[in-house]
C-alpha cells in the first residue's frame, strides 16, 4: 500500500504532474512530508495540498474489516480456527486451542529447560497428517544454535505417535517435511528470512521455528543498546511474515542475568521510593529475557519455561487472550508433557519472573 504510485491514484492531472515533477512518486514519499513542506516543495496552495493528501491517504489506507467478519473468516477458513494444538491438554485449553496462527509466540527460559525439546515437538506436530491432529504441512526450522537433532525428534515421534510412525515410510516422509536451516551469522539469517517470504507460500509451510533469536545477536554485538536496534527490522519482518502467510511462528529466547542498574521503575515510582519498600521478590530472580523490552513488546504470546526447586513449570507470561496460568511439566523420551492439566493461576509480577533453581539440564528418561 505504501508504495502505490501517485500517478495512478486518479488525482487531477495538473496536481499529479506537480508531484511527478518534484519526484514525489509514491504515497510513502508524499506522506513522509508535512503539509507545509509539501507546499514549499510543490509550490501550490494549502487547499490543494490538503485535498491531494486526503485523496492519497484514502487510497493508500488499507480497507477496514469489522471484527465480526474477521472472526467468521477464521472459523470458516482455518483448521481449528487458526491454532496448532500442542497436545498438552491444559496448555491448549488455556491458549484457546494451541499456538495461534498469524502471530509470534516466544519461548523463554534458562539453558537446558526444554525449549528446544518443545520446538522439536511442535515441528513434529505440524508435520503430522491432519487426521492425527497435525497441520499436514512443511516446517521451516531455523536452527541458530545447532541444537536440532533428528534422532531425538524421531524418537519423540515413535514414543508419542507409534501408530503413525510405524507405518511404512511414514518416518521418512514426516522427517522429510522438516527443513532445517543453520545460518552462521545475522547477515546469513537475514538473507534466508527474505527468501522465506516467497517459499512459505509456495511450499505449503505450516510452521516457522527460530531457535534461538537471542543467539544471533549475542554472537555479533556486545552488550548495550545496539542489541535492540540490530533486530528492529527482523521484528517487523517476522511479524508480517506470520501475519500474511497466517502460520504460527515460534521463536525461542535465552535468558541473561539482570544488570544492577536495570530499569524496572518509572520516575514517579522512584520519587516515592520511601513509601514502597524495595520489592524483595525482584531480587530472587536475577534472570531476564535476553532480548530487551522492544522485542518483548513485539511478541504476542510469551511462554516462560522455568524451574523451581527442581520442578519445571511452563507459564503463560504474556497473552492477550489467556489468563496467566502455570503448569508443571516434565520431559521424557516422548517429549514434553504436563504433570497437571489444571494449572495454577498466577498473580502479580510473578508472571514475568524467570526462575532457575536446580533442574538437571538433561532429558529425564526414567519416567
Amino acid at each position: 500500500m505504501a508504495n502505490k504510485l501517485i500517478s495512478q491514484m486518479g488525482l487531477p492531472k495538473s496536481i499529479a504532474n506537480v508531484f511527478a515533477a518534484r519526484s514525489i512518486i509514491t504515497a510513502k514519499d508524499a506522506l513522509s512530508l508535512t503539509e507545509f513542506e509539501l507546499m514549499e516543495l510543490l509550490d501550490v496552495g494549502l487547499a490543494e495540498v490538503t485535498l491531494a493528501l486526503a485523496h492519497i491517504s484514502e487510497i493508500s489506507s488499507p480497507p477496514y474489516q469489522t471484527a465480526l467478519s474477521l472472526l467468521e473468516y477464521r472459523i470458516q477458513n482455518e483448521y481449528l480456527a487458526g491454532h496448532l494444538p500442542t497436545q498438552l491438554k491444559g496448555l491448549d485449553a488455556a491458549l484457546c486451542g494451541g499456538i495461534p496462527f498469524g502471530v509470534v509466540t516466544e519461548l523463554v527460559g534458562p539453558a537446558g529447560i526444554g525449549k528446544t525439546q518443545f520446538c522439536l515437538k511442535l515441528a513434529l506436530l505440524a508435520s503430522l497428517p491432519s487426521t492425527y491432529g497435525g497441520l499436514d504441512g512443511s516446517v521451516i526450522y531455523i536452527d541458530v544454535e545447532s541444537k536440532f537433532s533428528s534422532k531425538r525428534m524421531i524418537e519423540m515421534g515413535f514414543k508419542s505417535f507409534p501408530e503413525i510412525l510405524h507405518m511404512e515410510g511414514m518416518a521418512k516422509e514426516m522427517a522429510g517435511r522438516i527443513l532445517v536451516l543453520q545460518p552462521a551469522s545475522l547477515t546469513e539469517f537475514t538473507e534466508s528470512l527474505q527468501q522465506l517470504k516467497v517459499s512459505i507460500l509456495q511450499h505449503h509451510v505450516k510452521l516457522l521455528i527460530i531457535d534461538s533469536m537471542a543467539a544471533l545477536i549475542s554472537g555479533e554485538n556486545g552488550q548495550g543498546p545496539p542489541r535492540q536496534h540490530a533486530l528492529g527490522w527482523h521484528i517487523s519482518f517476522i511479524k508480517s511474515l506470520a501475519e500474511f502467510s497466517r502460520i504460527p511462528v515460534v521463536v525461542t529466547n535465552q535468558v541473561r542475568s539482570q544488570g544492577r542498574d536495570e530499569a524496572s521503575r518509572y520516575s514517579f515510582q522512584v520519587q516515592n521510593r520511601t513509601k514502597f519498600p524495595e520489592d524483595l521478590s525482584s531480587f530472587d530472580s536475577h534472570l531476564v529475557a535476553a532480548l530487551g523490552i522492544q522485542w518483548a513488546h513485539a511478541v504476542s504470546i510469551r511462554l516462560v519455561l522455568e524451574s523451581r526447586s527442581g520442578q519445571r513449570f511452563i507459564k503463560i507470561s504474556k497473552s492477550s487472550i489467556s489468563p496467566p496460568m502455570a503448569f508443571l511439566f516434565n520431559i521424557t523420551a516422548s517429549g514434553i508433557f504436563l504433570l497437571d492439566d489444571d494449572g495454577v493461576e498466577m498473580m502479580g509480577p510473578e508472571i514475568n519472573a524467570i526462575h532457575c533453581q536446580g533442574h538437571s539440564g538433561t532429558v529425564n528418561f526414567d519416567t
Partner: protein
Amino acid sequence: MEVSSLPISASQRGKLISSGYTSLSSLSSVSPSRLAQDLKISENEALEILKVASRRSGLDITDIGACAIVNGAQTAWDILHEEESSVRITTSCSDLDDILGGGINCKEVTEVGGVPGIGKTQLGIQLAINVQIPADYGGLEGKAVYIDTEGSFMVERAFQIAEACIEDMQEYNSFLRKDFQACQNRKDPKDFLDNIFYFRICSYTEQIAVINYLEKFVSEHKDVKAVVIDSITFHFRQDFEDMALRTRLLGGMALKLMKLAKTFNLAVILLNQVTTKYSEGSFQLTLALGDSWSHACTNRVILYWNGNERYAHIDKSPSMRAASAPYAVTGRGIRNCASNSKRVKMM
C-alpha cells in the same frame, strides 16, 4: 495582517511581496486584472489569490460579534458547560474510572503505556466494547475504530469481553429494574464485534494515511465514538533513521488526532510502548517516542506493577490530579482488583 500569513504557495507569496503587496489592505482594493499584470500571472490565478485574501480579511471584520473577539473562540464559561455535559467511556473498573473522573473522556486524546503484558491491548479491546453499551445502561451506544499496528488484536478475546459485557447488562437489568421487556431484546456478542471497524497497518506510511483518512471515514460513520490505536509506536520505532523527520510526522499525527477528537466528539486512545531512559544517575522506564511526543496527548496513563497488583497512574492530565488505582485483568476483561478474594497464589 501580512500577506505572508496567507495560505498560498511560496512563489505566489514571493511575487506578491516583490510587487509591493505586503499587507492584506493593499490587496483589498486591487482588481484581478491589475494584480495579474503586476505579478505577471494569469487572471484566474490572481482571482484565486484575491479570494483567499478577502476570505482572510473578511474574518477580521465580522469578528465584532457578541461573545467572540477572535473568531472561533469560546469563553471559558461555555467550555465549562461543555465539559460538564461531555460523555465518558467506562473502563469497567470503577477504581480506574474514579481517578479518570468517570472514564476515558471524549474529545480528548488519552495515551496509555506500560510494560509488555501489563494489559494495554486488553484495555484497548475493553474500551472498543464498552463504547457500544446502550444509552439505557448509561453508555454511549457508539461504534469503535481499532487501528492495529502490531497484529495483537485478538478477535476471540473481543468476543469473550463482549459476552461478559452482555452478562453484566443483564445482571443490571434483573437487579435494578425487574424489567423483563428489556431482557427480551438481549444483544448478541456478534453485534458488538460487528461495530468494531478494524484496520490492520503494516508500515508507518499506512499509519499516517489511515489517520488522514479517518476524518472522512468518521464523517461517513458518525456513530464512531472511540478510536483505539494499538500501538502508536511500533512502526515509528523500527523504520527511522531521521529522528527530526520522525518528530515532525508524529507531531502532525498528534494534531490531526486532536482535531478529530474535538470535531467529532470522540475519544482517541493511543497505546504506547515503554523504553528505558537514563536520568539522574539511573536507568528508568519511560514511555517511548521521546520527550517531544509526551506533549502530544492530553492525558497520559501509565500502567505498572505495584507489588502483586496492576496499577494505573495518571502521569499527565490538565484536569485530573496525579493518582493511582489498582485494576485487574480477568477472564471477563478489565475489572476492579479483587484483593479481598485472592485466588490460589503460586508458591
